[in-house]
Every structure is written in structure tokens, then in C-alpha cells.
């Protein structure tokens, strides 16, 4: 008894909207405390959200996720925790309150602050856009403690979304390292949504996945006072096996004994797992060590623009012509902008230099990418790709040109007490 069940309704900023509803429906099959999380922040999402347009998009995204599942959540008393607050958790929480009011729905909405850090003007040549610390779960617990049904955060470490729910329901002590690590493991396994239950897994041969078109959502069930952790996929397509769970267990892991989070250092080096049912795996053996004194920070820095241009060639000599086009482009760019340093990919034979090359491609696409702080220069260089229509090798086609912002993310660290997170309740929803 007292298990906490957490389902993931999104694993990245633009995940399938139907997943939230599948996740909420899955939770209705469990008894106990039930939470739905949406993990929506990638490394540079916060930089993109700094503009007015970017903020509008993050509000639309949050409301889009809620729209798909809010009725099921209210009917079944499922609480929601998400970092879809992005760069402005309070403002996104207010927009959500407005949306719910419009539909005569009543929920208490909480938000978490404390991740945003002042940008140091002197560093990064004055081009820093945003600076945030990866904060832990305590702000989420405060918001839940204040009575929130929906908790809106910014840059909380991904697994901390789940740690917040477990720490609140199980009244965890903040130095109970093994329990914090268990909750972190639950968060790590479901934070990428379907990636633990058949998404990003399918291949020919031994990796067949049924029902890929409507993949189901994973549910983590955390037992109180025990190191048992169950991951299951009750509804929808896909599969959840020790194979799919192991791939996700090691995803973005470096030293398995030291996975650093703001809440705890998770140690999965002795984790074992068993298939305990159809689409259900049980893990044990995860332990925790004292949390680091430092929080990771990420500064987003404006690095100008990236331009990409591509052109295709077909037939037995396609590789020859793509290589010819590459050498023409190199020479023309050298004349226009000697410092441009373009990057080329010969798509269709990118790994030909490796020792297990399997033969000649018959369909090759040449790609050129350039970066510059000067957008006009990027455009001028892309014009040279377009000029290959009339001024390059035979049979080139399908040219596409694209320019997008280049935002560097620079990792740093601050002491835990320099970025303290707190949870609040939005006043007019109290």
C-alpha cells in the first residue's frame, strides 16, 4: 500500500499529444497516489523561450498537453507535474489558470521558482541569453504541500519531476539517499516517455515492436520503504521488456555508479531486473550517495546562425558527382569567405571510410553546413549551393536551404545554496 504511480505523458518538448491521455487512462488502472508528468525541456529550450514568440509557443505547448488529458485527470484525481513552465513558470501557470477557468474547470495550480540565475554580462562577450541551474525536487514538494494539483516548473532536473511526487507522498527525508535514488531511477526510466516501452527501439530482426503507431505510456510504481521499482505499460502499443528497460536505463548515463542529480548521486551499477509480467519489469538494487554540493548550470549563448544546404544525385555515378559538387563548393566558398570553414556530409555514404563499407550507393545527397554571426554571409554561402542547379555536376536536384539560430549551451556550476528552489500556489486558484 501507499505506492506512488507516475506516468509519463511527454518525453520531449513536442511529443505526441495523445500520449498524455493514454498515460492518464493507464493511471486509472492503479490504486494509490497517481501522478502524470510531462518532460518538455531540452538543453536549449530555455534560450528559444526568451523571445515573445518563444514564450507564446511555450504557453501553447503547455495548454496543448493539458487539453488532451485534463478531464481524465480531474475525474480520477491525478496530479500533474511538468517542467513546461520553461523560462517563465509563473506566467505559464497563470495562462493555465486562464485556460481552466475558460472551461469551468477548477484545479489548484502551483509553480516552482529558483532555477533562473542572473546572466553575467562580462562573460561570453555579452552574448549570453539565459542562465539556469538544474534544481532538485524540494520546490515541487513545497507546491504539493501547499495543495497544488498541477505543478509548473522551469529547469528542474528531469528525474526530479518524479522525485517530487515520491518525496511528497512518502514523506522522504532529504538524506534518505537510497529512497531518493530509487525515485530518481523511476524518473530516469520514464522521463523520455515511450523510449522505455518500445519507442526508439524497433529494428529488423530481433527488435520487432508491435503497435508502433499508437505507442503506450510507461508507468513507474514506487513502493514505500522498499527498493522495488516496477515499470509497466498497461495500455497502447509497444513493448516493455528487460531489453527496452536496459536501453533506457543506460541512456545518457556515463559512470553508472555516479549519476549526478541535484537530489542525490544515483548508483545503478548493481541494479538487476526481472520480467514480472507482460509489459512489466521490476528493478531492484539501485542505491544512492550524498547529493553533490554543486548544481549544474547551463548558460545559453547567442552564436549567430547555422545555414544548411542540400542537393541530391541519383544513379551509379551519384557518389562521383556529389564529391565533384563538394569540391566545386569548397573552391567557391574559399573565394568568397576564406574563413567560413564549411562542414560537408555525403549522405548515403557517410561512413564509407569505416572498415565495413558495404558498396556503392546509388542515391546520394550532399549537405553543406556553415556557421557565422553574420546572417548575410550564411545566406551568401547557401546561395552557392543553390547555384549548383545550373553551375554544378549533371543531374543535381531537390535542393533545400535552411537558416536557423545557433545557440551554444555552456555548462557550469553553482553551490546548492546559490540556487534554492521554492514552490508556490497561484493565488486565484487557492
Amino acid at each position: 500500500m501507499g505506492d506512488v504511480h507516475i506516468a509519463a505523458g511527454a518525453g520531449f518538448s513536442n511529443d505526441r499529444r495523445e500520449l498524455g491521455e493514454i498515460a492518464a487512462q493507464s493511471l486509472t488502472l492503479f490504486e494509490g497516489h497517481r501522478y502524470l508528468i510531462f518532460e518538455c525541456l531540452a538543453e536549449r529550450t530555455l534560450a528559444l523561450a526568451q523571445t515573445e514568440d518563444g514564450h507564446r509557443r511555450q504557453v501553447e505547448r503547455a495548454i496543448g498537453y493539458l487539453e488532451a488529458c485534463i478531464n481524465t485527470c480531474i475525474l480520477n484525481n491525478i496530479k500533474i507535474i511538468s517542467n513546461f513552465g520553461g523560462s517563465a513558470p509563473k506566467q505559464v501557470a497563470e495562462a493555465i489558470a486562464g485556460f481552466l477557468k475558460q472551461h469551468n474547470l477548477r484545479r489548484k495550480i502551483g509553480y516552482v521558482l529558483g532555477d533562473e540565475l542572473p546572466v553575467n554580462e562580462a562573460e561570453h562577450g555579452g552574448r549570453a541569453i539565459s542562465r539556469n541551474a538544474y534544481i532538485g525536487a524540494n520546490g515541487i514538494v513545497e507546491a504539493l504541500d501547499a495543495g497544488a494539483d498541477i505543478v509548473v516548473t522551469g529547469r528542474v532536473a528531469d528525474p526530479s519531476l518524479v522525485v517530487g511526487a515520491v518525496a511528497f507522498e512518502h514523506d522522504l527525508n532529504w538524506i534518505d539517499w537510497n529512497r531518493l535514488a530509487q525515485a530518481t531511477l523511476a524518473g530516469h526510466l520514464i522521463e523520455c516517455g515511450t523510449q522505455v516501452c518500445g519507442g526508439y527501439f524497433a529494428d529488423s530482426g530481433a527488435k520487432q515492436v508491435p503497435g508502433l503507431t499508437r505507442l503506450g505510456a510507461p508507468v513507474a510504481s514506487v513502493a514505500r520503504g522498499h527498493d522495488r521499482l516496477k515499470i509497466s505499460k498497461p495500455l497502447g502499443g509497444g513493448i516493455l521488456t528487460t531489453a527496452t528497460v536496459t536501453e533506457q536505463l543506460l541512456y545518457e548515463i556515463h559512470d553508472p555508479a555516479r549519476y549526478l542529480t541535484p537530489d542525490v548521486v544515483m548508483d545503478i551499477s548493481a541494479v538487476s531486473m526481472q520480467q514480472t509480467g507482460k509489459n512489466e519489469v521490476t528493478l531492484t538494487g539501485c542505491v544512492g550517495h550524498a547529493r553533490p554540493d554543486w548544481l549544474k548550470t547551463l548558460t545559453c549563448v547567442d552564436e549567430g546562425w547555422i545555414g544548411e544546404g542540400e542537393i541530391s544525385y541519383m544513379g551509379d555515378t551519384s557518389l562521383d558527382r556529389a564529391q565533384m559538387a563538394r569540391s566545386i563548393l569548397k573552391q567557391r566558398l574559399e573565394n568568397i569567405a576564406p574563413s567560413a570553414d564549411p562542414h560537408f556530409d555525403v549522405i548515403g555514404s557517410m561512413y564509407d571510410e569505416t572498415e565495413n563499407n558495404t558498396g556503392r550507393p546509388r542515391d546520394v545527397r550532399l549537405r553543406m553546413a556553415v556557421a557565422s554571426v553574420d546572417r548575410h554571409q550564411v545566406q551568401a554561402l547557401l546561395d552557392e549551393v543553390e547555384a549548383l542547379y545550373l553551375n554544378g555536376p549533371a543531374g543535381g536536384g531537390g535542393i533545400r536551404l535552411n537558416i536557423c539560430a545557433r545557440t551554444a549551451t555552456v555548462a557550469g556550476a553553482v553551490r546548492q545554496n546559490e540556487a534554492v528552489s521554492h514552490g508556490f500556489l497561484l493565488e486565484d486558484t487557492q
Partner: protein
Amino acid sequence: MTEARISVAMIPIRLLAHGRAGDKGNRLNISVIAFDPQHFNHLKAHVTEDLCRRAFAFSPPSGITRYVLPKINAMNFVLEDVLDGGVNVNLRLDRHGKTLSYALLDMLIPAPPGWGDQDDNQLT
């Protein structure tokens, strides 16, 4: 005669193991997980840091570390500086390096003893 030939056959890692690549900053990790626990020691012997270095000859990492997790029949390779500065600034087609798991999984290793004896193990 036939058995002798099979014992030296080379097969791609992906017939014995699966895996996934993940990025953080300029670092990439690739898991290699045995389909069949019985092949884990064979994989451990042949899928080495050196083999991984050869798989990435087209973009040499500055360092490779292998972690072995025998309880889950898996290995984790951590490759330093293979992403040209990281996901948000590099000029590659696949900025995350997500496709690179297959650069390792396609590498050839000796077939394990007994491989090919059964019909369902035939090379494809």
C-alpha cells in the same frame, strides 16, 4: 570442415547485442546489451575500447571508457569529444550523434561458439 569455417566467421555485433546512443554536451554514450545472457562474456571479450575506437575512425574521440554491468548483461561506452562541440553548435547532420550507436553495432566480431548450428541463428 563446416564447423571449422563457422568458428572463424565474423558477424556484426548487432546480431548479438542491441544498444542506444545518448548525448550530453560533447560526450556520447553507447550501450551494448546482450540479447542472450549466454553471449555476454563473448561480447565482453570482443567489444572492447579498442574496437570502439576503430568504429569511430571517421571521427576519433579524445577518450573512450567502457563500463561493464554484468547484472544486466550490458556494457556502457563513453566517448569524449565526438560531437564537434555538442548538440547545439556542431554542424553535423545528426547533431546529437543519435545515429552513432549503429556505427558501433555494425562492427564485426568473431561469431560465438556454436553460432549458426541452429536454423534460427542463420546469418542474414
